C-alpha cells in the first residue's frame, strides 16, 4: 500500500546518469583502481605462467622414453668354396700288384685329375639377424611415451593460453560490471540530490509544493529528511505570515480601513503567499 507522500517512480536506465560529473568521477575512479590492479597482477601472472610453462615443457622434453632396440640389417655371406674331386680310382687288385713286384716296377698310384675349370663358385646367402622377442612391445612403449610427451607439451601450451584468455576475459567482465555497478550505486545518491534540486528550483521561485518521499533503495535518506524539515520550516514561516496578514486585514476592514492602500498591498501579499503554499 502506498503511504501518503509516496509517489511511484519507475527507475529508467536512461536516467541512470543524473549527475554525470559526480557519478562518472566515482565510477571511473573505481574502474581505474580495479583496472590498474588487474593489469599489474595480470602482468605478474603472465610472467609466472610463461616461466611455469617453459619449465614444465623443458621437464617434459627431458623425460626419457624407453629406447627401441637396434636390429641389424640383413646381410649376404659367401659360403666357403667347394672343390669337385673326380671319382676315386678303382682299387688295385692283388694279381697286378704281384706282377709289378716281379717286374721290379713301382706299384702304380691311382691317378687323380683336378680340373679347376670344373670348380663351382657358391652363391651368397642372405642372412637376416634374429629380431628380439620384446621388439614389438618396445616400439609401442617408445612411441606411446613420445606421443604422451608431445600431448603433455600441447596441453601445457593450451593451459597457458587458457590462463591468458581467462585473465583477459575476467578483466573485461569486471571492468564492464564495475562500470555498471558504479553508475547504479552513485545513481542512488545522485537521484535524491536531483530530486532535492528540483524542489530547490521551485522554492527559489516561491512555490512550496508538497514534498514527496524518496524511492525505495535510494541513499541519503537522512539528508532528504533534513531537506523536508527545511521545506516545512519555510512553509511554516509563510503560514504564520498568512495568519498575521489575515488578522490585520480583517481588523482593518472591521474598522472601516478596508480600502486603505496599505491594506490593498497586504491583500496582494496574502494572495501570493496563499498561492505559494497551495
Amino acid at each position, binding site marked *: 500500500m502506498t503511504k501518503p507522500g509516496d509517489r511511484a517512480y519507475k527507475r529508467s536506465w536512461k536516467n541512470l546518469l543524473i549527475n554525470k560529473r559526480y557519478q562518472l568521477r566515482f565510477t571511473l575512479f573505481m574502474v581505474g583502481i580495479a583496472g590498474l590492479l588487474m593489469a599489474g597482477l595480470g602482468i605478474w601472472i603472465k610472467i*609466472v605462467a610463461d616461466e611455469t610453462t617453459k619449465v614444465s615443457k623443458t621437464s617434459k622434453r627431458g623425460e626419457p622414453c624407453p629406447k627401441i632396440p637396434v636390429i641389424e640389417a640383413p646381410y649376404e655371406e659367401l659360403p666357403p668354396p667347394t672343390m669337385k674331386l673326380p671319382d676315386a680310382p678303382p682299387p688295385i687288385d692283388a694279381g697286378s700288384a704281384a706282377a709289378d713286384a716281379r717286374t721290379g716296377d713301382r706299384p702304380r698310384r691311382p691317378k687323380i685329375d683336378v680340373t679347376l675349370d670344373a670348380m663351382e663358385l657358391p652363391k651368397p646367402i642372405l642372412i637376416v639377424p634374429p629380431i628380439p622377442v620384446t621388439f614389438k612391445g618396445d616400439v609401442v612403449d617408445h612411441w606411446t611415451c613420445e606421443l604422451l610427451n608431445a600431448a603433455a607439451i600441447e596441453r601445457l601450451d593450451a593451459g597457458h593460453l587458457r590462463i591468458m584468455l581467462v585473465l583477459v576475459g575476467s578483466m573485461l567482465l569486471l571492468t564492464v560490471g564495475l562500470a555498471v555497478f558504479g553508475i547504479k550505486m552513485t545513481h542512488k545518491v545522485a537521484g535524491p540530490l536531483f530530486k532535492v534540486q528540483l524542489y530547490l528550483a521551485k522554492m527559489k521561485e516561491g512555490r512550496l509544493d508538497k514534498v514527496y518521499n524518496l524511492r525505495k533503495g535510494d*541513499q541519503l535518506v*537522512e539528508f532528504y529528511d533534513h531537506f523536508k524539515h527545511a521545506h516545512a*520550516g519555510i512553509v511554516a514561516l509563510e503560514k504564520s*505570515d498568512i495568519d498575521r496578514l489575515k488578522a490585520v486585514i480583517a481588523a482593518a476592514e472591521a474598522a472601516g480601513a478596508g480600502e*486603505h492602500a496599505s491594506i490593498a*498591498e497586504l491583500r496582494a501579499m496574502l494572495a501570493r503567499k496563499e498561492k505559494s503554499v497551495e
Partner: protein
Amino acid sequence: MSDPTAATSTPVAPAGPRPKYKRKLSNYLLDKKLQLRYVLVVTILSGIIAGALGYMIYDQRHQSTASIESDLQRLVGADAKDVESITGDYQSQDRILVYKMVAAGIGLVVILSLYLVIMTHKVAGPLFKTSIYFERMAEGKLGAVTPLRQGDMLQEFYANFKEMHDAVRARAVADAAAMHAALQALRDSRNHGDYRGETHSKLTEELDLLEEHLVQRKQQLA
C-alpha cells in the same frame, strides 16, 4: 567544515577572503553510512580481485616448483638430501611470494580505504553543511550562507541551494519591509482618526501583534 552558526552573527558576508578552514582527521567520516558503504564495496572488490589473481600467481609458481622438484628427484635419484636442500630454497621462495602478496594486499586495502574516505568526505562534507542549513531553515532562521571549501564536490548542487536560500531570504526581507511599511501607514491613519468605534482597539491590538511578528522575523533573518 566551516561553521554555519557563524552566519547568524554576520548577516552580511564579511568582506575579504574567508579564513581557511583546516580539515580535521576526526571529521573525515561525516556520513558514516554513505562513506563506509562505498569504501567497503571498493575495498572488498579490490580484495577479491587481488586474492583471485594472487592465487593464480601462487598456483603457477607452485606448479613450477613441483616440476623442478620432480626433475631433480629423477636426476639425483635416491639421494633425497640433495633434492631437499635445493627444493627447500624454492619452497621458501614460494612462501616469500605469498607473504609479499599478502603484504601488498593489506597495503592496497589500507591505501584505498584512506583515499576513498578522503574522496567521499568531499561529497559528505557539502551534504553535511547543507543539512545544517536545512535544520536552521526548519527553525525559520535564514542567515547568510557561506560558500563551500575549495576541492569539495557537489559545487553545482550547493550553488542551487544557495540561490534558493538567498531568494527565500530576499523575499522574506522584502515582505517584512512591506509589512513594516503597511504597519506604519495604518498606524499613521489611526492617529489621523480614520478609525472609528469598538474596532479601533482590535486593530491596534492586531497591529501590535504584527509588529511583534516583524521583530521576530527580523531576528530570524539576521
